[in-house]
C-alpha cells in the first residue's frame, strides 16, 4: 500500500515511516498541512496518516478540505488529544479512524492495514464471509466450520465478523474493544483475551488447522 504520512515532527515521522515500511508499505512524508493537502490530492495513495496539530494547515481542516474536494482515500488521525470529543470531531471532519499518541507500532500498522482494506471491500455489499473452511452468513447470522454449524453468542458473532472482515490482518485488542464493544479505553484486565479464547474454543478446538492466531505483543490474526 502507498501511505502518505503528514506529520511535522521529524523524529516521529521517521518512526512512523519505519513502522509502516516494515509492514510492507510504501511511505511518503509531508511536513506541513499545506504540502500534505497538495500531495494527498496529486499522489495516488491508499491511506493517509494525518497528525492533528500541523503548521500551515490544521489536520482537521486538511481532511475537511480534502474530502470537500472529492478526495476518497481513507485517513487516520494521529493526535495527542485522546478525548471522545476530539475523536468525534476528527471523524466528523472526514477521517476514518483515530489513534491517540502515544501508540504502539503494531497498533498503527494494524489500523493502517485495516484502512486500506476497508476501501477495497467497500464496493459490493457482502452477505457471506469465508476464511478457509470457516463460513459466515451475515443475513442468517449463522457460522459453519467445515460444513459443521457453530453456535455463537451475539457478541461472539460480532467479534468473529470483525475478525473475518479483517482476515489476514493483525487486529489489536484496542481495535476489537473499539469496533466490537464501542469502548475507547484500555481495561486493565485481559477481558478481550478471554473473549477471543472462548471464540477460539468454538471455532478452532475440534479442528487441526488453527485459524485464529495470537500475534505476540500485537493482537490477533484470523488466517486460513
Amino acid at each position, binding site marked *: 500500500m502507498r501511505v502518505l504520512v503528514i506529520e511535522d515532527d521529524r523524529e516521529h515521522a521517521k518512526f512512523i515511516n519505519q513502522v509502516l515500511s516494515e509492514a510492507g508499505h510504501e511511505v511518503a512524508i509531508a511536513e506541513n498541512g499545506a504540502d500534505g493537502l497538495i500531495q494527498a490530492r496529486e499522489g495516488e495513495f491508499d491511506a493517509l496518516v494525518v497528525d492533528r496539530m500541523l503548521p500551515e494547515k490544521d489536520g482537521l481542516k486538511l481532511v475537511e478540505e480534502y474530502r470537500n474536494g472529492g478526495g476518497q482515500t481513507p485517513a487516520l488521525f494521529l493526535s495527542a488529544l*485522546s*478525548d*471522545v*470529543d476530539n475523536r468525534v470531531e476528527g471523524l466528523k471532519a472526514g477521517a476514518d479512524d483515530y489513534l*491517540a499518541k*502515544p501508540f*504502539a507500532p503494531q497498533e498503527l500498522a494494524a489500523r493502517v492495514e485495516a484502512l486500506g482494506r476497508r476501501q477495497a471491500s467497500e464496493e459490493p455489499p457482502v452477505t457471506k464471509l469465508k476464511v478457509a473452511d470457516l463460513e459466515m452468513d451475515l443475513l442468517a447470522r449463522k457460522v459453519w466450520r467445515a460444513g459443521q454449524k457453530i453456535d455463537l453468542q451475539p*457478541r461472539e458473532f460480532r467479534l468473529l465478523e470483525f475478525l473475518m472482515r479483517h482476515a489476514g490482518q493483525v487486529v489489536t485488542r484496542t481495535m476489537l474493544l473499539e469496533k466490537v*464493544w464501542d*469502548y*475507547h*479505553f*484500555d*481495561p*486493565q*484486565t*485481559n*477481558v478481550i483475551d*478471554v*473473549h477471543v*479464547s*472462548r471464540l477460539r474454543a468454538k471455532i478452532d478446538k475440534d479442528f487441526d488447522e488453527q485459524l485464529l492466531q495470537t500475534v*505476540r*505483543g500485537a493482537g490477533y490474526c484470523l488466517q486460513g
Partner: protein
Amino acid sequence: MSSGRFAFVRTTTFRLALVYSVLFGLFSFLLLSYLFQATVGSLRAEADQRLQAEMSSLELAFYGFGIERLEQSLIERALVPGAPFRYQLETPQGERLIGDFPNLPVTPPNTVGVWGNVSLTIEVPRPGAEPTLTEAEGRIVRLTTGHVLLVAIETGERSRIVRRITQAVTTAAPIGVLLALIGGIFISRYAARRAEQLTRTTEAVVAGNLYVRAPVQGSGDEFDRLATHLNTMLEKLERLMASSRHTGDSIAHDLRSPLSRLRNRLETALLGEMSTETARDTLAHTVEEVDRVLATFNAILRLSRLDAGAEGRLVRFDMREMLLELADLYEPACEDAGLKFESEIGHNLFVLGDRELLAQAISNLLDNAIKYTPENGSISLKAMRTNDEIIIEVSDTGPGIAEDMRERAKERFFRLDEARTQSGSGLGLALVDSVADLHKGEIELLWAHEEPEPFGLKTVFSLPRER
C-alpha cells in the same frame, strides 16, 4: 489596604444612599410645594374673588343710587352677624362716615376709580376676652365724589396655614434627609464590611494562602451566597492544587522505578554476550515496560482532562444497557480468573452522563475487583435506582480496604502496600472518583461482607437520577 474609618464613603451602597436621600429631599420639596399651592393658593384666590365681588356690588350701589345708598348698604351689611368683611367709608376730607375702623388704617389713593390692594391688621373681637389682631387683605377706592371706600377680608387663617406648612417643611425635610443618609451609612457600612471580608479572603488567596475561607453568616443573603460559592471554588482549587502537587511527585516516583528497571535491563543486555533469542526477549520485555509507562501517561492525561471539567457533553441515557454490556464483557474474564460473577441490573437507570466515562469508571472497578480477589472468590455488579439516585455497586471477596485508608485510596497514585506488587498505575480509583465528581455523584468504599470479620471491598457509586 484601604480600610479607613470612612472607606464606606467610596462604596456603591453609600453612593446609592446619598443619591437616594437627595432624591428623597427633592421629592418632599416638590410634594410640599404642591400642597402649599393647592391649599394656600386656593385660599388666596378665594379671598380675592370674594373681595372683588363685594367691592363690585358696593360700587354698583354707589354708581346706581348715590352715596346715601352706599351708606345704607354698609349699615345693612354690618348688621349681618358673622360677615367676613370689614368696611370703612370716609368723606373726601378723611372723616369717618361709617365703618369698622376708628381711622382709615391705610393711605387712600388719590386717583379716582382705581382699586388699590392693601394689607392691614384688624381686630377680631372675642367674647369675654381681649380682641386679637389678625392679618387682612383689602381693596380701597376713591369714588367719583371723593369719598374713600375700604373693603377688607380676614386672612389670618390663611397665614397660619402658610406658617405651619413652612415650619413643617423646614423641620421635616432636613430630618428626613438626615434619616435617609444615616440609614444609607448603616447599610453601606454593613455591605462594606461584608465585601471587605470577601476582599480579604481573595487577597489572602492571591498571596498564596489557599486554606482561608470567607465567613458565612448564615443569613442566606447575596453575600452569603457569594461567600459560599467562593469557598466551594477554593475547596476545589485547593484539592486540585494538592492533587497536582501530589501527582507531580507521584509521577516522578512511579515512573522512575519502571524507567530505571528499563535502564538496568538494557545496561545488562549491553554488558554480556547474548544470543539473538535472549536479545529479542530482552527487547520484548523492554517494550512491555515502556507500554506500561505510556499507559500510565494516558491515564494521567485523561484524569487531568476530567478534572478540568467536561460537563458540556453529558446526555440523558439509560445505564442499563451499558451495564449489561459490561457484565457481558467481564463475566468471561472473571470465570477465567476462577471467580464467580453475578450481576443484577435494574431497569430505567437514567442518568445525565457521559457513557464512555461511566463505562470506563465501572470497568476500572471491575478490573480492580478481578485483580484483588483471590481464586474461588466472587464478584458482583449491582445497579438499582432509589427515589433520586442511581446506585451501582461493585463488590468482591478480596481483602477490602480498611476504614482509615479509604479516603486516601481515592487519591492519585495511592496504592495499598499489599498492592504494590500488583501491576497497575494507582490511578484507577482516582479516575472513578473524578468521573463521579463530574457527574455530581460520589463513590463510597465499604466492607462487602461483615462475617466472620469484615472483608471484601464494596464500592458504591451513586449518581443523581435523571427522570
